């Protein structure tokens, strides 16, 4: 976790000349996006536990305090309900708070402010007040972390009307989606797969251009089966697609990215084309995002589904302590097997 902020990059600090390109990890892309947003809009402020001098336990906010000062990069006392609740107040006053919850497993105390206030302020006041806030938090397993540091409870938020839930799966999408999340006039829960934070590097142009929050991303076209996923599992799905290719199976891979609201059209169009749907998530099944997508297939897909929908998921248990977490996390073999099942179905 010792990487330094790339904000020392002068081309960035003097935002004049040609937007710089950087080869960055996902967490560095998150850092870049926040820096860009703060530079472009004085209303953007960052808050959370250890986000200041320490730059966040994953270094996502590294260098921001030095650059934008402690009035715009605030270490809060240790209280998640507080972090979410003051963000509501700040947002209602026209600031654009970008709050960090240190891990998704610690967001639960903030659920009341997210569900009862952030998600409803616009609706309750008929547009008089609204809540342009972002809550960023790392999610998911696979990093050998202690208990409560590996949660995949995205469905708890994907089910709440009035908020957006966004999960990036590459540095470029992290940069573009976070910029849009910060610009968005409504509350966004931005879930960052910690397993991807430093997995790959990618060249991105720091041009301040966001990516849309209302579409899925088709990462790989295919015609035989659709692999629908988001977050860290995107990478297992892409590998699985390559595996399947060896077996002459053409798999389409879709990164849902925005889990609330969901871009159903893209998903349905793909499954209508392939006739086969495999949904891959780390989370347990009950009432999950995978359930929602599968249920839409059950409502709309009956005429074109050539095989039952397959869900490759974590087990319906909490994720085990890290010594056993590999058994819990969906892997390439699980995905390939499920895809093959849909192909062999008759």
């Amino acid at each position, binding site marked *: 976790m010792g990487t330094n902020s790339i904000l020392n990059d002068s081309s960035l600090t003097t935002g004049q000349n040609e937007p710089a390109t950087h080869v960055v990890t996902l967490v560095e892309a998150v850092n870049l996006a926040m820096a860009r947003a703060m530079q472009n809009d004085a209303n953007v*402020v960052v808050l959370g536990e250890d986000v200041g001098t320490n730059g966040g336990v994953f270094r996502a906010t590294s260098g921001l305090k030095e650059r934008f000062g402690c009035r715009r990069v605030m270490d809060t*006392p240790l209280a998640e*309900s507080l972090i979410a*609740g*003051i963000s509501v*107040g700040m947002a209602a006053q026209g*600031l654009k708070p970008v709050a960090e919850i240190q891990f998704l497993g610690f967001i639960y105390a903030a659920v009341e402010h997210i569900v009862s206030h952030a998600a409803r302020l616009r609706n309750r006041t008929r547009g008089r007040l*609204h809540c342009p806030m972002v809550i960023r938090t790392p999610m998911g397993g696979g990093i050998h972390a202690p208990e409560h540091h590996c949660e995949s409870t995205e469905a708890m938020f994907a089910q709440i009307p009035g908020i957006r839930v966004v999960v990036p799966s590459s540095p470029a999408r992290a940069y573009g989606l976070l910029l849009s999340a910060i610009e968005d006039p409504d509350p966004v829960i931005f879930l960052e797969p910690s397993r991807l934070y430093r997995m790959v590097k990618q060249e991105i142009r720091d041009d301040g251009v966001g990516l849309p929050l209302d579409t899925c991303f088709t990462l790989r076209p295919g015609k035989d089966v659709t692999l629908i996923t988001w977050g860290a599992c995107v990478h297992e799905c892409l590998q699985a697609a390559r595996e399947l290719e060896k077996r002459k199976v053409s798999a389409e891979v879709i990164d849902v990215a925005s889990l609330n609201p969901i871009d159903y*059209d893209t998903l349905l169009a793909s499954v209508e084309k392939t006739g086969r749907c495999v949904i891959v998530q780390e989370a347990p099944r009950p009432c999950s995002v995978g359930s929602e997508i599968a249920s839409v297939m059950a409502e709309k897909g009956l005429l074109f589904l050539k095989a039952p929908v397959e869900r490759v998921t974590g087990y319906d248990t909490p994720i085990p302590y890290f010594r056993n977490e590999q058994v819990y996390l969906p892997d390439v073999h699980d995905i390939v097997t499920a895809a093959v099942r849909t192909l062999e179905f008759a």
Partner: protein
Amino acid sequence: MLYTQTPYQQHRFIDPDGNATNPLPAWMNDTSLLLRFYRTMTLLRLFDKRVVALQRTGQMGTYASCLGQEAIGTAIGCALQPQDVFVPYYRDQATQYLRGVELNRMLQYWGGDEWGNHFTGGAAQDFPNCVPIATQITHAAGIASAFKIRGEKRAALVTCGDGATSRGDFYEPMNLAGVWQLPMVLVVNNNQWAISVPRPLQTSAVTIAQKAMAAGIEGFQVDGNDVCAVHDAVLYALKKAHSGKGATLIEAVTYRLCDHTTADDATRYRDHQEVNAAWTLEPVKRLQTFLHQRGLWDEAKEQSLVAECQAEIEQAVKTYQALPPTPVDELFDYLYDTTPPHLIVQRERAKQKSARLAGGKRHGH
């Protein structure tokens, strides 16, 4: 009346018999303000009674009366500056009225219509009523943080009840207000009851004011039935906030003379003697006597004031009763800034359904 550590010492100006307890502050020479206090409290008392009547006759939803607690909201409303933001809980009709929230809008809120939260004018930035107890205090800390971040001379004033002081949302933002020296004023309406739970079962702290020590901020009690005492305390706290000297916790000691809400029956859990005793301390009569003694009030004035208030209230009730229900579309139009496709589809279904239901009503089946 007990104290906690504070330079502020004026817990009462008018005793229960309406006698002044000297010395009185200079601002109390402003008789027009004193009369404004009285008018507001009188109006609210009559309004409350009327809303309860509406509820009893099925023309209103569950309503939380502020009977006996009019002094607090009135004192706050007259102390707040236009640039300040008011963050209420749900017994703040007096403050909301003084901030410019129309009575008919309050009726609309309690009548089950979101437009009741669409404040305009002086209240345009104020928060709507907050039902999830104490959560508004955290929002107020966020609003105060925004003022501090932008370097604005504004304060966030937030209210809550005694029961609310048991929740994390009371302590967390108060603690933050201490660390960040936020321009926040927290007024606790200690009306001795949280529905059926009496104040001693809520906390064993001798005063609620002393809870300020947990946050390292100033806290003290005032007589919540003395509108002047509350007003002076709020003036003190707002001045402090506006001059960057941080947050204050004010415990206004009063009594809930009404049921918790129209859905409650207080006779189940508290006895008459207690309530009767509390009536001898109530704020409206107290101020009236005080004004009488100063020759500022008489029976004639009283009668015309009552008539005037009644008229204002009846006008509001008419406006409320004439309101058509909110078109159901709005349920979808104000959820997100841009309504996503699936909600546009659902909006159509909802329109058809509400037409069907309306039709059903018309044809009485």
